[in-house]
């Protein structure tokens, strides 16, 4: 097992990962450009939140959530270049997740709707992109909004 196949996570301890469980961000993630490999971890009781954890002992992770859980009407325009960048997945193979900033109190937490993470689940190729219609959304969407309370679309 190479060091690349190991993920270290506070809650999960040390994990051995198969190659197909590792997502590859060839440009890293803005702010963490040198770290290229991540995995997705979850716990039943934490759903719908997932951990996007760096692979290789970096002690780095992000909490991510489906942006549609927060804003059911979310319509990100992802550029053809960005879709091509991760190998042009079909709609079924495309995973879209949004980064969460957990605050105190928890209800004040925000979600970045401007820069979702897109993953090609077939190849594992991934990228955090900036949506083309960024002016319609905010990088600090309150996680609990009037809209999401009623669940209207």
């Amino acid at each position, binding site marked *: 097992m190479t060091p690349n196949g190991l993920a270290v996570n*506070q*809650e999960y301890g040390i994990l051995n990962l198969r190659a197909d469980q590792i997502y590859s961000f*060839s*440009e890293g*993630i*803005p*702010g*963490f450009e040198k770290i290229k490999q991540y995995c997705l971890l979850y*716990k039943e*009781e*934490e*759903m*719908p*939140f997932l*951990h996007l954890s760096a692979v290789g002992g970096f002690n*780095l*992770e*992000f*909490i991510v959530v*489906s942006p*549609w*859980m927060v804003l*059911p009407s979310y319509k990100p325009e992802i550029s053809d*270049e960005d879709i*091509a*960048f991760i190998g042009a997945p079909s709609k079924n193979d495309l995973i*879209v997740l949004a*980064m*969460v*900033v*957990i605050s*105190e109190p*928890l*209800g004040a*937490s925000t979600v*970045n709707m*401007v*820069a979702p993470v897109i993953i090609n689940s077939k190849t594992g190729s991934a*990228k*955090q992109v*900036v949506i083309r219609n*960024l002016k319609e959304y905010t*990088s*600090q969407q309150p*996680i*609990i909004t009037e809209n*999401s*309370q*009623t*669940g209207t679309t």
Partner: protein
Amino acid sequence: MLVLTRRLEEGIKIGVDIEIKILEIRKNAVRIGIVAPKDVSVHRSEVYEIIQKENVLASKSDVQNIHHLGSLFKKKGIKAKKD
């Protein structure tokens, strides 16, 4: 920083496969065309900086309590939606 003066329709080549061209000059803005390989991302600097800042904040999130956040979510009546 390398500083160059360019006129309308003139360009700059960076390495062998990146080209930047001045397309239009207005009073307070310049339109720029960029040709770059598919695996090179092009970002507006200020947007990239906002994303970097948000990501650093996100990475410092206290993850111990997110199961509470999940229950807060459920209490608010949000149901999982299939994409």
